[in-house]
């Protein structure tokens, strides 16, 4: 099994097709618009409260990039500190490796069920499915993850996995499915948020009190102390991290921070960027094991799964600085229209469009770097200053190069680009094409506008009129009306003399 099998949802159509289906779902679009709009406004308000917000962003970016440059060093320090504190560290090179390790650890406890803290890393490796194959049932305890799990669905947002669901849908899912997984929902369950939360609370409480094994992800891990951190809003995580006897944490290797003190920066940035709160309600920190307090066994699985390869790419590696806040999703105009499923990946939105092709290989997610207008809103929102547009364009070049390598014959797009390059490579050829286009377009046009266009441009002209190219280009107008001296033909020589 390769990384692609899990990070990418196999069988999902490429982004443009998946997006078309999502766009047709008016309820989905309404849910998304409302949810992203609300979080977006809250984030802007609480970020504006901090006078040193930009300094914090800069500090976070610096710490992350510095850590990534010596990742091996910090990971070894982390291993040493965790071990010294009574934890056990495991190294997993890929998803299959990590699943094998976690499954064996659960089996060794003799249990056949685990409670889970919401975690992107375990989504990425498909842990729930791997545990199910081994006869172990994994219960998601985050409210949104619970909704997704009960609905037999996939998460569509990093932070709010059920963002695509409205409350009436959630009520239906609870009524239909809760009984299959444990305590059923009350018969008279309404779709009031308070009632829905209460039903989930009662359903989950049974599991917290019964569970002997918990599986979590990690937001951060401090290499100097071996402390692992999870931040969350509901307290479900806190229950999982303290009640069970065995705690297994699966963490991407990029989550390590050099020092405990670095949390100072990130615990200010993360909640404000993700939920628009000044502080998240629950921050759990644990360092190995402590007699009489919390789990007696602690395992930390350090997951590579494509990260080392990503690190080797000088431009692309900045995606590893991501702290999974999802601010980029909430500001992305493309995400707002399509939702997360269209990306066909565990990591949706702008960060998914740059992370997924790198973790899973560009050939497994070639349409994702193109799922953006390059508007730049994600870069502005990112608390760790990942230049997402830069990485998108970088990966587009990789996608094109990969296609070139794989094919003997160039694609129609490549031919068009080549032709355009030839025209734009010469002012004389450009002038000729301008004249031809102006004449040709007039044959197509009515009232100075072009309606339907052929070939790939039909998708454009279906909803937009196109103006006719000018009868006289600017360069032609200039030649006709201006004295030869102002054409600037000899500017190179002239200019250099001038400087």
């Amino acid at each position: 099994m390769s990384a692609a099998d899990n990070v990418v949802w196999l069988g999902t159509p490429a982004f443009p097709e998946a997006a078309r289906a999502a766009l047709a779902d008016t309820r989905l679009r309404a849910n998304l618009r409302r949810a992203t709009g609300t979080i977006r406004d809250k984030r802007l308000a609480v970020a504006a409260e901090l006078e040193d917000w930009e300094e914090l962003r800069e500090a976070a970016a610096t710490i992350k990039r510095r850590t990534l440059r010596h990742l091996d060093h910090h990971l070894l320090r982390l291993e040493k500190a965790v071990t010294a504190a009574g934890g056990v560290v495991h190294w997993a090179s890929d998803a299959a490796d990590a699943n094998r390790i976690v499954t064996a650890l659960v089996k060794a406890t003799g249990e056949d069920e685990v409670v889970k803290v919401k975690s992107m890393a375990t989504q990425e490796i498909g842990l729930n499915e791997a545990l199910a194959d081994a006869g172990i049932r994994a219960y998601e305890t985050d409210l949104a993850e619970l909704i997704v799990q009960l609905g037999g669905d996939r998460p569509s947002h990093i932070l709010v996995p059920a963002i695509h669901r409205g409350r009436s849908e959630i009520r239906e899912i609870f009524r239909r499915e809760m009984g299959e997984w444990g305590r059923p929902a009350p018969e008279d369950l309404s779709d009031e948020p308070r009632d829905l939360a209460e039903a989930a609370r009662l359903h989950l409480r049974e599991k917290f009190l019964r569970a002997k094994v918990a599986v979590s992800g990690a937001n951060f891990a401090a290499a100097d102390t071996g402390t692992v951190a999870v931040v969350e809003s509901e307290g479900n995580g806190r229950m999982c991290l303290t009640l069970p006897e065995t705690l297994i944490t699966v963490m991407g290797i990029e989550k390590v921070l050099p020092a405990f003190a670095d949390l100072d920066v990130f615990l200010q940035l993360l909640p404000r960027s993700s939920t628009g709160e000044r502080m998240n309600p629950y921050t759990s920190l644990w360092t190995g094991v402590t007699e009489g307090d919390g789990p007696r066994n602690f395992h930390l699985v350090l997951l590579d799964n494509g990260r080392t390869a990503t690190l080797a790419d000088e431009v692309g590696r900045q995606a590893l600085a991501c702290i999974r806040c999802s601010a980029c999703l909430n500001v992305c105009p493309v995400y707002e229209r399509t939702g997360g499923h269209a990306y066909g990946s565990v990591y949706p939105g702008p960060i998914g469009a740059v992370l997924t092709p790198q973790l899973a290989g560009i050939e497994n997610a070639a349409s994702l770097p193109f799922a953006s207008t390059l508007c730049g809103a994600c870069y502005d929102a990112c608390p760790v200053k990942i230049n997402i547009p830069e990485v998108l364009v970088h990966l587009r070049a990789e996608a094109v190069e990969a296609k070139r390598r794989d094919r003997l014959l160039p694609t129609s797009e490549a031919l068009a680009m080549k032709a355009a390059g030839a025209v734009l490579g010469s002012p004389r050829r450009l002038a000729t094409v301008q004249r031809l286009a102006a004449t040709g377009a007039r044959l197509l046009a009515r009232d100075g506008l072009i309606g339907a266009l052929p070939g790939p441009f039909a998708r454009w002209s279906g909803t937009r009129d196109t103006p006719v190219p000018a009868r006289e280009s600017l360069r032609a107008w200039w030649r006709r009306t201006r004295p030869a001296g102002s054409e600037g033909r000899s500017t190179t020589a002239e200019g250099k003399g001038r400087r």
Partner: protein
Amino acid sequence: MRIALFITCFNDTMFPRTGRAVTELLERLGHTVEFPQGQTCCGQMHFNTGYRPETLPMVRRFAEVFAGYDAVVAPSGSCAGMVRDHHRVVAAQYGDAALAEAVEHVVPTVYELSELLVDVLGVTDVGAYFPHRVTYHPTCHSLRMLRVGDRPLSLLRAVKGIDLVELPAAESCCGFGGTFALKNADVSNAMLADKMRHVQDTGAEFLCAGDNSCLTHIGGGLSRLRTGVGTMHLAEILASTEGDVR
């Protein structure tokens, strides 16, 4: 000041009136405008679509053709952004040391129109007259690559007779995105629909922006719906005088 006009291949072919407006405007302000005939394109379409090696000849040509002017002005935030943010990248990746140096020389002289007027020429009132209700869409690359901020708005506010109205959700992308509009046509259309609704909500007669590419996309949609709302490049409004009737 001796200013070179970088018209951009798209404006050159489709909207020469924008280039004429820039020329009129700058000459009215007492500057010399030249049009280097060797110019073609900034290479953005190739670069952003992933055809990076193909961008190199255009970067090379740009650095040669526009060397030595006091300033180079482009009536496009997008193309100015391409030159400013990416020509160095292409030169470093595929070019030679001489090209890298040439790019390094030319890039700091390149300005988008509103930047040139406000920062370099120090004017906000360019003596324009445009008695219409106008709303302004800050295109993404002007806004977030170049950070032109409210320069275009301060220029528009100084226009005599104008009724400048705020565009709701102005900073959200119109959905054009170059080849995005073809590759992801459905998402592009959904974004366009929202942008058009916001434009219509303002009751404006004209939608103004600093990029004709975005305006072609939005204007094409407004035209298809027969909204009657026109589109105008910032340069054309700033070039308008009492003698013009639109």
